[in-house]
C-alpha cells in the first residue's frame, strides 16, 4: 500500500469498466465516467489547495488497469482497483465501492460518478452507493462547481446544476457526504501530456480484494434496452379507431401532478406513485 499522506480535500471518482465485446482491448468506461473525472479535476483545481486530490476507484479484473492508467495520465492523483469480477449486481458493486472508500480512503465527502455506463446505463450504482455511504445523491447533473468555501465539516461547498424536463434547470447546494452523477456532455476528459502518459505506465495501482464470486452470472453483457410491454389488443371497428385506442390520440391527457415536499416525503410519494402506476410490485 502506498503512503499517500492526508490530503486537504479528496474527491473520489467512480468508474465502471465495461467489456461489451469480450475483448479487453476495446473495453472502457462511458463518456459520462470520463466527464466525472474531468469535473472532479476541475473542481480540485478550483479549490486552490495544493494537497487536494482526486482518487479514481473502479471494480474489475487486471484488464482494467490500462483504463486506470489513463486516469492517472489525465491527472488523477491515485487509483484504486477493487479486484473482483465485473458481473456483480449493482448493490454488491456499490457495497464493495463503499467498503473500499471507508477502509482504504478513510471515508469520503464527495463522490462523482458518470450518469450511465456503457452496458445497462441505468445509473443505479450511484444510488446504491449513496445508500451505503449514508450520503445525499443528485443525478442528471450538468455542472458542478466549488468556490473555495467549506461547510462545518471542512468539506467544500458544492453547487450543482441539474437538468429537468422541459428544458428547465434546478440549482442545488450539495451537503456532504454526497454522491453526484454527471452527464457525459458536461466535459471532455483532458488529453494527457506525453510525460504524464509515460509516468502513468510506471505508476502504482492500489489493488484491494473485492467480493470473489457473483451470486448471479451474466451470460452476456449488452447495452440496456427496456423490456417489451404487453399491451392488450385494441378495440374498435375501424383501423383508425384501433390506432386511436392504442395511441390515445385525441384523448384529453392527464396532466402531471405538482407537489412540493421535503426530500424524505418526496421520495415516499414517488415510491407510492410507482406502486400505484404498476411500476413497482408490492
Amino acid at each position, binding site marked *: 500500500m502506498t503512503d499517500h499522506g492526508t490530503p486537504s480535500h479528496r474527491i473520489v471518482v467512480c468508474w465502471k469498466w465495461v467489456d461489451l465485446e469480450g475483448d479487453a*482491448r*476495446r473495453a472502457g468506461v462511458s463518456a459520462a465516467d470520463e466527464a466525472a473525472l474531468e469535473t472532479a479535476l476541475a473542481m480540485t483545481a478550483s479549490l486552490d489547495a495544493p494537497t487536494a486530490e482526486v482518487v479514481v476507484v473502479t471494480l474489475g479484473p487486471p484488464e482494467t488497469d490500462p483504463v486506470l492508467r489513463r486516469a492517472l495520465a489525465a491527472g488523477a492523483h491515485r487509483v484504486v482497483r477493487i479486484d473482483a469480477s465485473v458481473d456483480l449486481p449493482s448493490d454488491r458493486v456499490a457495497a464493495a465501492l463503499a467498503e473500499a472508500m471507508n477502509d482504504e480512503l478513510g471515508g469520503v465527502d464527495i463522490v462523482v460518478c458518470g450518469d450511465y455506463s456503457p452496458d445497462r446505463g441505468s445509473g443505479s450504482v450511484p444510488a446504491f452507493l449513496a445508500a451505503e455511504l449514508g450520503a445525499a445523491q443528485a443525478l442528471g447533473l450538468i455542472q458542478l462547481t466549488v468556490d473555495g468555501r467549506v461547510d462545518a465539516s471542512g468539506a467544500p461547498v458544492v453547487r450543482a446544476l441539474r437538468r429537468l424536463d422541459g428544458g428547465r434547470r434546478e440549482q442545488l447546494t450539495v451537503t456532504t457526504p454526497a454522491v453526484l452523477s454527471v452527464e457525459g456532455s458536461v466535459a471532455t476528459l483532458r*488529453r*494527457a*501530456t*506525453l*510525460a504524464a*502518459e*509515460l509516468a502513468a*505506465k510506471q505508476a502504482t495501482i492500489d489493488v484491494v480484494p473485492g467480493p470473489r464470486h457473483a451470486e448471479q452470472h451474466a451470460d452476456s453483457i449488452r447495452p440496456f434496452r427496456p423490456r417489451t410491454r404487453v399491451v392488450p389488443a385494441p378495440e374498435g371497428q375501424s383501423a383508425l379507431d384501433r390506432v386511436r385506442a392504442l395511441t390515445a390520440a385525441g384523448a384529453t391527457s392527464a396532466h402531471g401532478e405538482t407537489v412540493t415536499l421535503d426530500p424524505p416525503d418526496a421520495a415516499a410519494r414517488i415510491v407510492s406513485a410507482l406502486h400505484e402506476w404498476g411500476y413497482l410490485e408490492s
Partner: protein
Amino acid sequence: MTAEPVAVDVVVVGAGPAGSCAATALARRGHSVILLERGPFAGSKNMYGGVVYPRILDQLHPNWWEEVPIQRWITRRSTMVLTDSQAMTVDFRSQHWADPPYNGATAYRPDFDHWLAQKAEADGVQVVTSTTAVGLLRDEAGRIVGVRTDRPDGDLRASVVIACDGVNSFLAKEAGLFREHQTAADNYTVGVKETIALPRDVIEQRFGVRGREGVDIEILGGTGGVNGGGFVYTNLDTLGVGVVLKLPALAAQQQRPEEIIADLKAHPAIAPLVEGGEVVEYSAHLIPEAGRSMMPTLTTDGMLVAGDAASMCLAAGIWLEGVNFAMASGMYAGEATADALAAGDTSAPGLAGYERRLGDTFVLRDHDKLHRAPGLVLSDRVQHQYPQMIANVVERVFRVDNPQPKPGLRRIVREERKRAGIGIRDLARDAWTGLRSFG
C-alpha cells in the same frame, strides 16, 4: 510553462509489424525506445486481409508459431483466372505447410500486430498508444532530432526516428525522402475487403480443409474491368473476400469498389463459396504497389524509413507479400540504428548499414529482381486480354464438338490470341519480361 521534451534513444513511429520489430531489435541492444501508435492498441487501425509469411520471425522470436495468433495455416494455394462467365483455377496443396515451421497464414492483424507489440513491450519498449506523430523535430542545422506528437507538451526528442507510419508516410514525405513521381496515384492500388462470417464447419467443407488448415485464392480478373485482382482467404469462421484496384483505373471507370466486390461475390465460381455468409466488416486501404521504383530514399540524417512507409510491398502476381518485408525491414532498421548509436554516428552515412542489410537479404534482392513484375501484372494485356484468351483456349480444348474432330492446340492458341487482339510482338515482349522477372 512548457515542460522539457521527453527524450529517448530512438522513437519508432507506428506499431505495425515493421515498428514492433524495429523497436524489439533496439531494446534488445539496450536502447531506450518509444513506440508510438495512433490507435488505442497496436493493430487497431489495421485493415489488412492477406496472408502473413512470418518465417523472418525466426530471428527475433524463435518458435514463434507456438504463440502467434493466426487464423489458419495456408495449405492450399489457388490462382484463379476469371472472365464474366468462365473460371480457370490452378490449385496446389501441400501438407508440408500444415506443420512447423509452416509457410503462410491468414491472420487478423489487430491480433497479430498486438502480439508483436506485446513482445516488444516485454523486451523493454515503451508503447505509447492513442498518440499520433504529427511532424518532425529538427535542430538549428535542420537535422531530424525527434517527432512532434498530438499530445500536449508532446515533443519527443530522439537520436534517431524510425518511420514505420505506413503507406502514404507523412513523416517520410516531410523529410523529403520521396521524389514526386514516387507518390503518383499510378503507383497505388486500393484494397477493399469484406469479412464474411460463416460457420467453421461450412468453411472447411466448402474449401476442403480441416483443423487449422486454410486456403488462399488469388484471382486475376473479376474486377469489373478495373486493373487489379481479387482474393478469397479463409479465416477460422470468416472469409476475407475483396479486390485490389488500381487507383487511376478505378477513378476513370467511375465504379464503386463495393459494387465490384458484389459482382465478384455473384460470379458463378465465387458465389457458392460465400453463399449464406453475413458481412461483418468492410474496410479499405491503400497499397504501395509499384515496388522498387516507388521506394523513397531510405535514410537521412537521424531518420530511417521501413515497412509500407518505404513502399516495401511485393505485388508481383504470383507473390503477394508485405508483412514479411515490413518485419524484416523493421528488424534491420533497428539493428542498423543500434550499430549507429554504438558508433556515435546517426547521420545518413552512419545509418547506411540499414540499406546494406536490406541489399544483402531478400528485402531488396526480391524487389530488385522483380522490379518489372508490378508493371507487367497490372498492364492492360495481363489484366484483360490474356485472361480472356486463356479461358477461351481452355474452354475450346475441353469442349467436345462432335462430329467435329478435335482441333490442334496450336491452332486454338493462334485463333484465340488473334481474337483477344494480342499481337505476336506484344506476347513475346511480355513473355520476355516475365522470364526476366520470374525466371
